C-alpha cells in the first residue's frame, strides 16, 4: 500500500480490509471537500478566508490523488466522486459556507480516526498516515470553528 508520501505500507490481512474501507471513506470525504470548497469560496469575501480556501482545496486535491493511487496499488477500485454535492443548508451567506467547510473537515477527521482504528493492528506507515491526516484535518476544522464559535475553537477529541 502506498501512502501519500510515496512509501509502502503493508497492512496485515486481518486489518487490510478495515484499512481499505477507512481509506475509501477518507477518499469520499476528500472528493466532497474538493468539490464543495469551490462553492464555499464563492460565498466568502474576506481575502484571508479566500486564500485559506484555495490552500485547503489544493491540499484536498493532492490528498485525493494520493489516496486514489494508494488504493489502486493494492487492487482496490477507488470510490468515485459524486456528480455534485449538496450543502446541508442553503448557502445564503458566509456563515452558512463556513459551517459547511467545518462539516467537511470534520468528516475528514472522522475518516482518519477510522483509519487509526484499522491501523492499530500494525505499526508503520499506515498509522503515521492516519495520525498526520487527523492532525491536519483537525487544524483545518479549528480554523473554521474559530470563525463560527470563537469562544470554543477546539474540540477535545477530533474525529469523534
Amino acid at each position, binding site marked *: 500500500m502506498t501512502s501519500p508520501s510515496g512509501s509502502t505500507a503493508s497492512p496485515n490481512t486481518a486489518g487490510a480490509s478495515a484499512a481499505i474501507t477507512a481509506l475509501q471513506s477518507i477518499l469520499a470525504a476528500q472528493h466532497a471537500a474538493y468539490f464543495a470548497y469551490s462553492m464555499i469560496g464563492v460565498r466568502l469575501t474576506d481575502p484571508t478566508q479566500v486564500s485559506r480556501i484555495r490552500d485547503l482545496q489544493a491540499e484536498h486535491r493532492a490528498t485525493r490523488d494520493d489516496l486514489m493511487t494508494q488504493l489502486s496499488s493494492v487492487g482496490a477500485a477507488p470510490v468515485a466522486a459524486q456528480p455534485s454535492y449538496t450543502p446541508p443548508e442553503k448557502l445564503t451567506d458566509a456563515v452558512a459556507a463556513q459551517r459547511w467547510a467545518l462539516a467537511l473537515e470534520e468528516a475528514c*477527521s472522522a475518516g482518519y*480516526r477510522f483509519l*487509526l*482504528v484499522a*491501523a*492499530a*493492528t*500494525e*505499526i508503520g506507515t499506515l*498509522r*503515521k498516515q*492516519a*495520525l498526520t491526516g*487527523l*492532525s491536519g484535518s*483537525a*487544524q483545518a476544522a*479549528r480554523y473554521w470553528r*474559530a470563525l463560527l464559535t470563537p*469562544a*470554543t*475553537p*477546539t*474540540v*477535545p*477529541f*477530533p*474525529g*469523534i
Partner: protein
Amino acid sequence: MVEISRRTLLSRTVLVAAAAAGTGLGVTRTVHHRVALPPTPPPQRLTALLSTQVRLLTGYQRAVTALPDQAARLDPLRGDVAAHGDALRGLLENYPGWRLNPTLPPAGASSAPAVVATVAGLTGASKAAAAAFSAACLTWPVTEQHASQIVPMLGSISACLDTHGQVLS
C-alpha cells in the same frame, strides 16, 4: 497359627483405625490450592501520559487564576485537557490493577517540572504533550491488549493538543 501379643494386636488395630479415619476425613486426597495473583497493572506508558495530562491541567488551572484577562481563551482549552484525563482514566480502567490505587499520582509525576503558568509556558507544554501522545500513538505495540481502543484515543488527543498549540500561538 501365629500367636501375637495383646499389645501388638492393640497397636495394629489402632493403626488400621487411624488410617481408615484419615482416609475418611480426606487426609489422603489431593488438595488444589488457589493462589491469588495480582491483577494486571496498566502499562507504564499510559500512566506516564496521564502524568503529562495532569501536569498540563495543573498548568492551565494556575494560569486561569494568574491571568484573568486570558481566562476566556484558556478556559475552553483547560476543559479539553480535563476531558483528556477522563478518557485516559477510562482506558486505564481496562487494567484491573489500576483499580488498586487509581488516585495515586502516576509514576514519574513528581520528577517532571511544573508547567509555567503563562501563555508561552502552556504553548510549550501543549506542544511537548502533543509530541508525547503522538509518539505513543505511533509506537503503541500491536500485541498489547486494548490497542484498538488506545491507539485512536491517543491520536485524537494528540491532534487536539496540536490545535491548542495553534490557538495559543
